[in-house]
């Protein structure tokens, strides 16, 4: 996961712990999970681009 996604997840978790209202706590907990998955999707897409761009004839 890249730095920005890692920061989003950590910040969302921090806010979930600090929230004094259940709806806010749930919101930030779900946000952390969403950003984790968003980061994973970014990694997958970057990996696919690397894989498809690799051309052995250019070695």
């Amino acid at each position, binding site marked *: 996961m890249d730095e*920005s*996604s890692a*920061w*989003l997840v950590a*910040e*969302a978790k921090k*806010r*979930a712990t600090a929230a004094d209202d259940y*709806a*806010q*706590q*749930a*919101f930030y*907990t*779900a*946000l952390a*999970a*969403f*950003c984790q998955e*968003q*980061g994973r*999707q*970014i990694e997958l*897409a*970057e990996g*696919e*681009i690397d894989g*498809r*761009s690799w051309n052995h004839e250019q070695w």
Partner: protein
Amino acid sequence: MHTLIAVAHPHIARSNTQSFLKETAALEPTATWHELDGATLNLAAERKQLLASDRIVLQFPLYWYSAPAALWNWLDQVWVKNVVYGPDDGLLQGKSLGLVVSYSEPPRDYDLGGKVGLSMQEILRPFAAIAKRCGLQLLSPLLIPQFDRMTEQERAQLLVAYRQYLTLADPSSQREQAAWFEQQLRQNDAELLADTLADQQDKLLDLRATVSQLRAGEEE
């Protein structure tokens, strides 16, 4: 978008699931919680409320592989010819239909070859026919198995998924979910989080566009 949540539960006061969903729905000012208790219906008022909604959510626990009687009673009396469908077309075009279904068994019991012997898709198929007949766009159902066994993490995700189900045009769209989170963050004055989330979403969409181009190039 105005959402009508038609809730049918024979023992609603004892239901932890419905109590959780009711508190969550109260966070959405454009959603109306409407309990169907099987009592005599004011048909004119029910139909007016139905027709004034952009989304109708049928919400119920699974009872004998279907919805409880109060829901069918409401459908039988309110969803009638010349109100929800005409001789040729559905009369609820432009609206959407959601299903929020809770049940007590693990999800695998409703897989093909599972203990129940019917998949959830098969069980809910009559609602797909109702949606088609009325011209409603059917959303993927929001299924809630074993609420009482859910972890805090799972409940938090359910709370947000339910809020999105009540308000987003396509609740299953990752793009719309990202926009929803961003909007909520801005309402909470969490601007830096909102900006970073939006930047990451733009990055993801750009990457996906590049992937599509590369895939298309390889097929040529």
